[in-house]
């Protein structure tokens, strides 16, 4: 009795007796009753009151139950308004007529209160469920629209980053489905200041936005560093570390990166997790596969990361191909995969090298057949060509000079109140690694700067005698004295002078460290590297092996080293 929320029930019956009984039954259940005496009144009442459930007598004057039911169902539209026919008609034909008109159930005479109660309850549950479904459906549609909007924006952002490259170069052919970034695929290409072209093909695990998100730092890092002249290894390490930091466990990027040097006719390849890429030798029309020999990007930190590449000599018109596994895994209607064998066959069957690229795509599309929704192909062909032949919108040879630090001089002085707590080395090193070509030598540079600085500080400023360090007790005394003297604070200053210039293949860095101390007699010590007098210790000997030259200036309170490097160490 009234154990549910009160509903609005429309009762239409032309017999007063019957209608009275029904009204009482329904009211007793706690519901609100709206009465009608014929079909027309019923439809009007429905429009006006919007009842939750409708009880309709089948046979009524003016408009009978069937007609009323049809109109009411039409008015209800998407919503579910259950209609229960009141009838003592028992023949199948009449019952079918009720259902055809839109009736959901019947209630026969004499009216049984409990049966009606049960029907109202059941239909109310259905009505509420239906309303919930509609609401949720609308929410889903809304969310879906949002998702699509988000993806559209993400794609635009990505396109802006990705389009600063040279994929349009005259020696490059590439194919990528338009929404490939949401398959986790990324393809970036840039010309380096040295004139070589670097191309990276990446395939992130996963799909949708999570896969696309990794592509953005990858692309921006790639383009940012390539234009400054950083080497393939530098760029790889930077991307690897970034991805390792930001991607969750289990998400990584299989990638192949190449550096094609047109002047030297050389190719460097690093393949981490992608299928074999091919070198096509045009003289023999043969294919040389380059296997994956590394872990994908973003799996291990840079300590364990291996950036060694394979090197190849190429001739003009030789071509390099790389692809994501979308080609090998493309399926036809039978569920077979395209696979490596078919790919090799395309190469074997080709008679016109210029159409190889189109042959590959044609073969895959033919295999997969029409109407196959999964266009997940990403592939690229890069041809070895004469450097002067390469045209691309992104190349502007006049400004192709290094966009990194090319030639500069820097003086930096550490003063007495800074000695105790300030370590100038990270700051100086930070500046130096912005020089493309020097970044890979950061370890050596740190060693050099560190040794020169500690000599200048301990001997020049603090006035400690390194002869103390020959015995264990002396060692301890030395460092105790060092702490004490640092606390005083010491008087004095240390100046760094850094000077650097680049050539085509490398450059030269000059470092001078001068302290305010008395110096020492350096003229005698230069050629005796193992002597432990004055400022010469094992440290200086090591520095000598790393640098082009090392000499003392002035009183011996200034040391100068010259460090030369070559770009693209092997």
């Amino acid at each position, binding site marked *: 009795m009234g154990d549910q929320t009160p509903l609005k029930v429309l009762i239409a019956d032309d*017999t007063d*007796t*019957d209608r*009275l*009984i029904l009204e*009482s039954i329904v009211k007793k259940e706690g519901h609100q009753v709206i009465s009608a005496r014929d079909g027309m009144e019923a439809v009007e009442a429905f429009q006006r009151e919007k009842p939750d459930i409708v009880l309709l007598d089948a*046979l009524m004057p003016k408009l009978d139950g069937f007609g009323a039911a049809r109109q009411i169902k039409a008015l209800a539209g998407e919503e579910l308004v259950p209609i229960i026919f009141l009838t003592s008609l028992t023949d199948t034909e009449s019952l079918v007529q009720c259902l055809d008109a839109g009736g959901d159930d019947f209630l026969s*005479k*004499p009216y049984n209160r409990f049966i009606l109660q049960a029907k109202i309850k059941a239909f109310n549950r259905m009505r509420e469920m239906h309303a919930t479904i509609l609401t949720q459906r609308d929410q889903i549609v809304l969310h879906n629209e949002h998702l699509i909007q988000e993806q559209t924006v993400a794609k635009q952002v990505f396109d802006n980053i990705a389009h600063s490259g040279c994929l349009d170069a005259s020696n490059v052919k590439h194919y990528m489905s338009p929404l490939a970034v949401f398959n986790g695929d990324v393809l970036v290409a840039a010309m380096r200041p040295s004139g070589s072209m670097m191309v990276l093909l990446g395939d992130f695990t996963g799909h949708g936005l999570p896969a696309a998100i990794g592509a953005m730092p990858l692309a921006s890092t790639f383009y940012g560093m390539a234009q400054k002249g950083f080497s393939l290894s530098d760029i790889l390490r930077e991307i690897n570390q970034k991805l390792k930091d930001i991607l969750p466990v289990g998400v990584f990027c299989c990638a192949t990166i190449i550096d094609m040097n047109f002047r030297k006719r050389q190719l460097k390849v690093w393949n981490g997790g992608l299928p074999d890429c091919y070198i096509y030798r045009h003289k023999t029309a043969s294919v040389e596969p380059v296997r994956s020999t590394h872990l994908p990007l973003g799996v291990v930190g840079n300590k364990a990361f291996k950036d060694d590449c394979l090197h190849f000599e190429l001739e003009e018109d030789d071509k390099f191909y790389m692809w994501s596994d979308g080609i090998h895994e493309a399926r036809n209607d039978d569920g077979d995969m395209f696979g490596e064998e078919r790919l090799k066959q395309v190469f074997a069957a080709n008679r016109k090298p210029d159409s190889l690229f189109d042959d590959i795509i044609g073969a895959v599309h033919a295999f997969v057949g029409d109407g196959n929704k999964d266009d997940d192909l990403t592939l690229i062909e890069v041809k070895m060509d004469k450097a002067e032949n390469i045209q691309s919108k992104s190349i502007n040879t006049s400004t192709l000079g290094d966009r990194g630090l090319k030639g500069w001089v820097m003086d930096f002085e550490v003063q007495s109140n800074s000695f105790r707590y300030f370590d100038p080395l990270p700051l100086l090193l930070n500046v130096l690694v912005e020089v493309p070509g020097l970044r890979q030598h950061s370890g050596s540079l740190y060693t050099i700067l560190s040794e020169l600085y500690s000599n200048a500080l301990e001997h020049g400023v603090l006035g400690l005698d390194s002869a103390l360090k020959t015995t264990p007790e002396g060692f301890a005394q030395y460092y105790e004295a060092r702490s004490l003297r640092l606390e005083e604070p010491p008087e004095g200053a240390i100046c760094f002078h850094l000077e650097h210039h680049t050539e085509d293949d490398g450059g030269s860095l000059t470092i001078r460290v001068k302290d305010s101390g008395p110096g020492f007699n350096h003229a005698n010590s230069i050629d005796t590297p193992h002597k432990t007098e004055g400022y010469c210790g094992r440290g200086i000997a090591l520095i000598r092996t790393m640098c082009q030259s090392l000499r003392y200036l002035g009183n011996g309170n200034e040391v100068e080293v010259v460090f030369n490097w070559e770009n693209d160490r092997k």
Partner: protein
Amino acid sequence: MSSSHVDIEALEMLKEVMEDEFQLLIDTFVQDSTDRLVTLREALASGDADEVRRAAHSFKGSSSNIGAGPLSEICFALEEGGRTNQLDGLEQKLAEAEVEFEAVKVALANL
């Protein structure tokens, strides 16, 4: 007290549902039915089979709701006659209905 004309149990349940309106219901039924019988007589007289069917059908329904079983069955016969367009002999049935109705009225009054 003739319980063969009306179902006492059904009436008890009705009383429980209708509460204060029970008497109103009885009065409505009596008025309804009286009018219905007049309609039937007129329809039969003018040979309108469809009208006979409709009126009998409604009367059948309301009498069953009131618990007047026998009356309801007589109405069914009248309805069938109207439906199959066999109006001859229905005169007799109509008379039966009128008699039965009187008995029902008495039974209802004695509740």
